[in-house]
């Protein structure tokens, strides 16, 4: 992973000093609430229901065992013993005291971490593929490019007060695991016919109140020019994005209003002026950054470990976990392990301090000290020998981290919702837990197969509900919490926004609603067809009929 040099370290140290002084001036009354707000937000600090919420950056989801141990220590000392991984591959704490935040940031800086630009109307933490560098389907490693863009965007003086937040995602594999089509800028690292590296650039995607799939603004921007190209997009957006209405301020609204051709023309006009300027990348700089992401010293191993193969035969629970939570690796004899943070009854994405320490120990013992956060709110040990998988599984199982449900119905993406978030219209976690309880039978879960269920407690769509195969959105109706359901959403290469199936439901109805959706799928599916593909094929009507048909019947029964 990327390791700081003296310059990187100085910047985070200076940030700690700056924020310490800003917090002091705020507490002394020299900075007003309004003046302090954007400053604290750009340091990941929200004011929430219980206390400030601190969101710490995990750049493109990559971190180390030492960093995870520090997060565990922070959870213990400043919070209530747990943290929450988010769909932006960050981690957040819900209970720190404002006055202690500078101390927390100082502690983070000792392990090359920070909370820079994890919130606010600036360029946010860049997300990427959690399997970058190890995925068998990877074409180009996106990590060096993420780091180059991270450095370019950190404290960018021109883009610290954009019309709204701005999110990048970078993908370098055949399968898009970074949801690049739902980002303000989505970058696909590609090679052209001549074998040169460049970027396919998408712009104007995003979820939230107005969900939009991004459009291609450039089919191929040569790598030398990616910084100046992005800078051109940001400048057009900074000057012309709407500032009169925060709900219409994202770049997607500007792109829609102008049309992609006109937006492209404006960006190209801007780019023409600084295309070959001083920010044009050089081979030496790319090589310097890329040197941080070379493979660990993998051993030469047989493609299949004999002991592992026999354990798979003998031990059903282990085999079930391997089937769901272990992925093929580009290097023979290795595998990537997804650690499920989706045990029934635990808020999706939550992890305790002792679990963090266990994961850090496992990373040191079995995965070259590296850990990754996925945008599905799980963790990954990317480089585990097959021969170690059984030991890793046993340790994870003992810690409640081996739920064999990755990619299944109970692997729910969920925002913290109304239990924690001041923006939420409705709770998310109890809905997730109720659905997990309903589908706790593993055989049934496996029979249902691959499906993504995403829950957001409000329009802001932190739970990415629009791109869930089943999406659940918390809405407020006259002070009561209701849930609107969409189906047919998808992330990845065929990203799509789900369609609303009809009027919203009360919380207590949600497990039944999901059950009826699943029943409809099972009654209609072709062999090996995923839920979302059945929805694509037969449309939403049969699902709707079953869900609302049952619902009316139940009501009649109830009134009889």
């Amino acid at each position, binding site marked *: 992973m*990327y*390791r700081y*040099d*003296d*310059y990187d370290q*100085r*910047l985070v140290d*200076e*940030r700690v*000093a*700056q924020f310490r002084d*800003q917090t002091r001036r705020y507490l002394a009354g*020299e*900075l007003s609430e309004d*003046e302090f707000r*954007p*400053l604290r937000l750009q340091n990941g600090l929200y004011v929430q229901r219980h206390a400030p919420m601190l969101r710490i950056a995990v750049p493109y989801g990559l971190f180390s065992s030492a960093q995870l141990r520090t997060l565990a220590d922070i959870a213990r000392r400043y919070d209530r013993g747990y943290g929450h991984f988010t769909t932006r591959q960050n981690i957040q704490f819900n209970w720190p005291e404002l006055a202690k935040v500078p101390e927390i940031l100082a502690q983070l800086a000792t392990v090359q971490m920070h909370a820079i630009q994890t919130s606010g*109307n600036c360029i946010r933490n860049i997300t990427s593929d959690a399997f970058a560098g190890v995925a068998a389907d990877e074409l180009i490693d996106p990590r060096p490019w993420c780091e180059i863009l991270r*450095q*370019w*965007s*950190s*404290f*960018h*003086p*021109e*883009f*610290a*007060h*954009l*019309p709204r937040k701005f999110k990048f995602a970078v993908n370098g594999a055949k399968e898009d695991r970074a949801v690049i089509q739902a980002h303000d800028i989505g970058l696909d690292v590609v090679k052209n016919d001549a074998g040169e590296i460049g970027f396919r650039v998408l712009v104007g995607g995003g979820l939230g109140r107005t969900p939009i799939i991004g459009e291609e603004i450039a089919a191929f921007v040569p790598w030398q020019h990616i*910084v100046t190209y992005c800078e051109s997009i940001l*400048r057009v957006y*900074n*000057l012309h994005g709407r*500032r009169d209405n925060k709900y219409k301020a994202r770049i997607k609204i500007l792109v829609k209003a102008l049309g992609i051709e006109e937006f492209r023309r404006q960006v190209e006009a801007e780019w023409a*002026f*600084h295309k070959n*300027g*001083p*920010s044009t990348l*050089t081979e030496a*700089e790319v090589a*310097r950054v890329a*040197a*941080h992401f*070379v493979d660990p010293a993998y051993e030469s191993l047989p493609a299949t470990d004999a002991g592992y193969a026999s354990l798979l035969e003998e031990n059903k629970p282990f085999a079930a976990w391997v089937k769901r939570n272990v992925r093929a690796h580009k290097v023979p004899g290795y595998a990537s392990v997804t650690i499920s943070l989706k045990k029934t009854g635990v808020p999706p994405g939550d992890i305790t301090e002792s679990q963090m320490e266990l994961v850090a120990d496992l990373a040191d013992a079995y995965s070259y000290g590296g850990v990754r956060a996925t945008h599905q709110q799980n963790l990954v040990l990317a480089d585990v020998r097959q021969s170690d998988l059984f030991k890793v599984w046993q340790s994870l199982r003992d810690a409640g981290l081996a739920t064999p449900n990755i990619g299944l119905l109970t692997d729910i993406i969920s925002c913290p919702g109304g239990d924690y978030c001041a923006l939420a219209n409705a709770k998310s976690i109890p809905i997730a837990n109720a659905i997990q309880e309903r589908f706790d039978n593993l055989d049934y879960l496996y029979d249902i197969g691959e499906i993504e269920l995403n829950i957001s407690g409000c329009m802001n769509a932190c739970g990415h509900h629009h791109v869930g195969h089943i999406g659940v959105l918390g809405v407020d109706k006259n002070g009561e919490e209701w849930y609107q359901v969409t189906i047919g959403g998808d992330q990845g290469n065929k990203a799509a926004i789900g369609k609303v199936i009809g009027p919203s439901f009360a919380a207590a109805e949600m497990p039944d609603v999901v059950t009826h959706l699943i029943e409809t799928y099972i009654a209609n599916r072709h062999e090996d067809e995923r839920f979302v593909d059945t929805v694509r094929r037969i449309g939403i009507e049969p699902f709707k009929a079953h869900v609302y048909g049952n619902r009316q019947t139940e009501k009649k029964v109830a009134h009889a």
Partner: protein
Amino acid sequence: MPKVIRNRRVEDDARQIVRLAEGETAETVAIPAGPVLVPLAVWQARAEELAARGDVGVWLEAAEGAELIAADLPKLAAVAVNFPAFTDGRGYSTAALLRTRYGYSGELRAIGDVLRDQFQAYVRCGFDTLQPNAGRYTDAQLEAALASLGDFSVPYQGAVDEPRPLWARAQRGVAA
């Protein structure tokens, strides 16, 4: 006399900012003697008369792009960009365009809701003069705020004040 930060020093400054009050028009508003900054609309209505004075500058509102004043830059004693709220970041790009695209090298002043926590960003985008709203800072606070100009000693990316990114101007470490 109001104080401004100019080239990283606190200085007295006599330049008056003319803002149109309700009922006043660009054509008829009285322009005081001495150095002034007038709204773009006033300049556009009376460019000839004002240019002859030699001490007139123009201030742009956040929505008024740099291109609107580009042709007149040689005639101006100063250019300012107004920040109606410090969270309105258009002025950063406007300043960058004035300095780079249009080659303006005279005084470029940030006015309006100009706060110390943004001082370094203003300077990096090409402002040489910073004028917070009257009364926002005491003289002592303004002196203390000079420290904010050095919040980040070695920024990563190129900007107007130093167009080369860090990697192009420093020998950086390679992975261990």
